[in-house]
């Protein structure tokens, strides 16, 4: 069974974009969620991330991330309400509870928890879209010349995680097939066997990396090779996409607008001591811009061509 967050090659603009452009775009949406506490802006960032995911064909990743994110948000709201005693609007007095002491549930603590939870949910959706749409091989390739060891570690992990998951599934199956008189599989035995198996697998993967030349010095840049008399290749082969500019531009626009809005007071939300929510026109405008940015992965309609 494949994880919904696993990268799936598709022909959409977000998948075609270089990792830098995709990270700039999705990173801007997540940055907005971290910069703002306004529920309107947070909801707009969430809608934009969901839209981007659906338009990029990562609907199942978005759905799973939303489910996980909203569950986490509810948990954060509950925990925040129980542990934070700030806020003037007391909704419920629970009295003295073991470990927590005197607990008053306030509307402000609930609201503050909801903001944190929403922020976490937006971040999860953003990362889900990244995971399902950005080719990890291209990210590692971009990382390798600047951080060879980190790239090696990331390569090993990115390969070993699915292999270990497959091993675990097989071991569990074998556990179900053990006869009733055989010692049961047991979690400790399974964990130990998985660990030793993973070490063996890691050795095999490391051997393959060695054979592929991973131990060689980091790859030289093509242009440097050309200047030393190496063969010349067309510039069109540099790994870029025609969508890069779009994502860089949208990401920059969203980030600049968010920073400017923050400076101009578009984030007029305070939870304590009483809830204050200001919705100035700047907040509405920023929210509209953020929602619209979710359309960036939309594919342009192909022009009609007449066939002879």
């Amino acid at each position: 069974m494949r994880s919904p967050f696993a990268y799936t090659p598709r022909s959409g603009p977000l998948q075609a974009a270089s990792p830098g452009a995709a990270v700039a775009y999705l990173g801007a949406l997540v940055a907005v969620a971290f910069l703002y506490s306004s529920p309107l802006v947070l909801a707009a960032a969430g809608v934009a991330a969901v839209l981007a995911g659906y338009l990029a064909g990562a609907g199942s990743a978005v759905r799973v991330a939303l489910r996980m994110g909203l569950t986490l948000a509810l948990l954060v709201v509950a925990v925040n309400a129980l542990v934070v005693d700030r806020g003037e609007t007391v909704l419920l007095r629970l009295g003295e509870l073991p470990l927590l002491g005197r607990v008053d549930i306030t509307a402000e603590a609930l609201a503050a928890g909801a903001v944190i939870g929403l922020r976490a949910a937006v971040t999860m959706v953003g990362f889900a879209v990244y995971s399902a749409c950005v080719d990890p091989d291209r990210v590692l390739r971009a990382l390798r010349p600047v951080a060879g060891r980190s790239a090696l570690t990331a390569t090993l992990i990115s390969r070993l995680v699915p292999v270990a998951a497959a091993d675990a599934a097989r071991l569990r199956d074998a556990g179900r097939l053990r006869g009733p008189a055989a010692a049961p599989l047991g979690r400790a035995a399974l964990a130990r066997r998985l660990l030793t198996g993973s070490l063996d697998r890691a050795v095999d993967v490391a051997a393959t990396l060695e054979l592929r030349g991973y131990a060689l010095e980091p790859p030289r840049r093509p242009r440097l090779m050309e200047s030393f008399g190496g063969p010349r290749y067309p510039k069109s082969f540099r790994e870029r996409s025609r969508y890069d500019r779009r994502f860089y531009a949208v990401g920059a626009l969203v980030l600049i607008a968010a920073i400017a809005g923050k400076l101009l007071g578009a984030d007029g939300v305070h939870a304590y001591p009483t809830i204050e929510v200001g919705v100035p026109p700047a907040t509405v405008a920023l929210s509209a811009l953020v929602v619209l940015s979710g359309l960036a992965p939309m594919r342009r309609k192909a022009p009609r061509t007449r066939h002879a």
Partner: protein
Amino acid sequence: MPELATRARAAPVLAIDSLSYAYPHASRPTSGMLSPQGGSNIDLVLRNVSLTLAEGEFALVAGRSACGKTTLLRAACGLVPHFHGGEIVGSVHVAGIDAIAHGPGDLAAVVGYVAQDPETQIVSTTVAAEIALPLEMRGDPPASRARAVEEVALALAIPHLLSRTVDTLSGGELQRVALAAALVTRPRLVLLDEPTSQLDPVAGDELIWLLRRLNEEWGVTILLAEHRLERCLAAADRVIAMDAGAIAFDGSPRDFLAWAQQADTALETPAARLFSLADIDPLPTGVRDARAILRKERVGGPPTETCEPARPAPPPSDRRGFRSGDPRPSPGAMAAEARDLWVELDDGVSRGDVLRGVAFKIARGERVALMGRNGAGKSTLLRALAGLAEPARGKAKAPGGIALLTQNPSDYLVRERIGDELPGDAGLAALQIVGLENVVDADPRDLSGGERQRLALAIALAGRMDGDELPGLVALDEPTRGMDRARKRDLEEMIEGLAASGAGVVVATHDVEFAAVFAQRVVLLGDGVVIADGAAAEILSGGWYFATEVARILDLPGVITAEQGAASLDPEGRR
């Protein structure tokens, strides 16, 4: 590096001289140093090996399990000693580069290596990135990489896979991708360690002939280690047979067959055994060669020729393959049944029907081979019978219980003492069934491959037996992967013993020759549907890919083994 490149072009592709090697932690009887001759040291994996491969040779490494084939290949690509450590004497030069002084990374430009398990030799997410990785490591620019990837993908007929992620590929596709990654740097030497062990007969044959084509058209030198010699002997120029870490034979395929006839019959191919039993010379290296010899010698051969079989085929069998003398199940003693069985699975891309209305029965005491290409639904059928796969429609049941042994017996072994895996009297009874009752205190990791398989079967059987009576069905999924013929004989005996004790035995296998020996009946699956179900002799002689080598040579109905084939030929051997 330029100096290395110059040396690479001038020298033989592989030159090994007096090579002896021991893995780290191998126990030594006396001193710690290896003797160059490797003489009496019992822990040496390679003993005084000397070997030279010229440009463009296609060499096959033969030998029983653990004879040193894999270690020889690892030494030729630098993994031994650089990656595995250990003690080594002698020299290994690959295209003029000293493999002991330089690591596998330096050798990557001149040698490609494909290991047995494709799962562990894939390190990227997408196929295109996996194939391009060695070029990227070498610093090739994107345009050069793109061209090389395109060319190697076309050569291996996998351009349609380039944009796929590796976790959506079948075993055969993964093996091709691993081969593409090994070939993309245009190495002078390609090393392959049992590359067909996980492939069905169709994909296995395709891979061998693909290697031959690359060898002829690209001039790539091939060093291939294999157990299924009948599959690749005809493609090879030379055979190197190993025994206990030393080279026991080095010569042409035909001379190898003559040597194997005297020195180790476990290395004989079915075709060679057929000719040997029928007293026909010379021994054939493959089906085409055998047919040509039969034509020349005017011996009873294929019906397409003018010759007719001089003797009738072996005694006819009923639809289930029982002959007189075979133990027959008592009427109504059913071991397993599938009725209109549909199973839907997610292959990582979409959900689809893996089994489509399968219907069949297995009787107690019956020995059945379940065959079909990779992805035909064999494992899913066994999993459905064992309750691991939920039917979407229909029923799968094994009324007397089922003991299923999946493809990797090590998955059943999770403790460090056999007695801890199988405690109590019921555990001991299961160990007695497989003949391991005397090693209760041993560590499962110290057992041989065959013993581990038997122990895993005991774990699956434990508590499912009614006194001495076995469960109704014993199912084995691809049990002969990586096995030499001697170990297959042990397995065959075990299967016969289980069936004689009253269990129905079903074995999912790609190994046609093994099926011909143990099975009474063959069920052939194609794309989730039963496409043939009948006596083994009938099914394994009626096709091309799912037919034994003897059946392909003689093309006589019902003749699938060398013994049957020899009996079908003219008693004088000539016509």
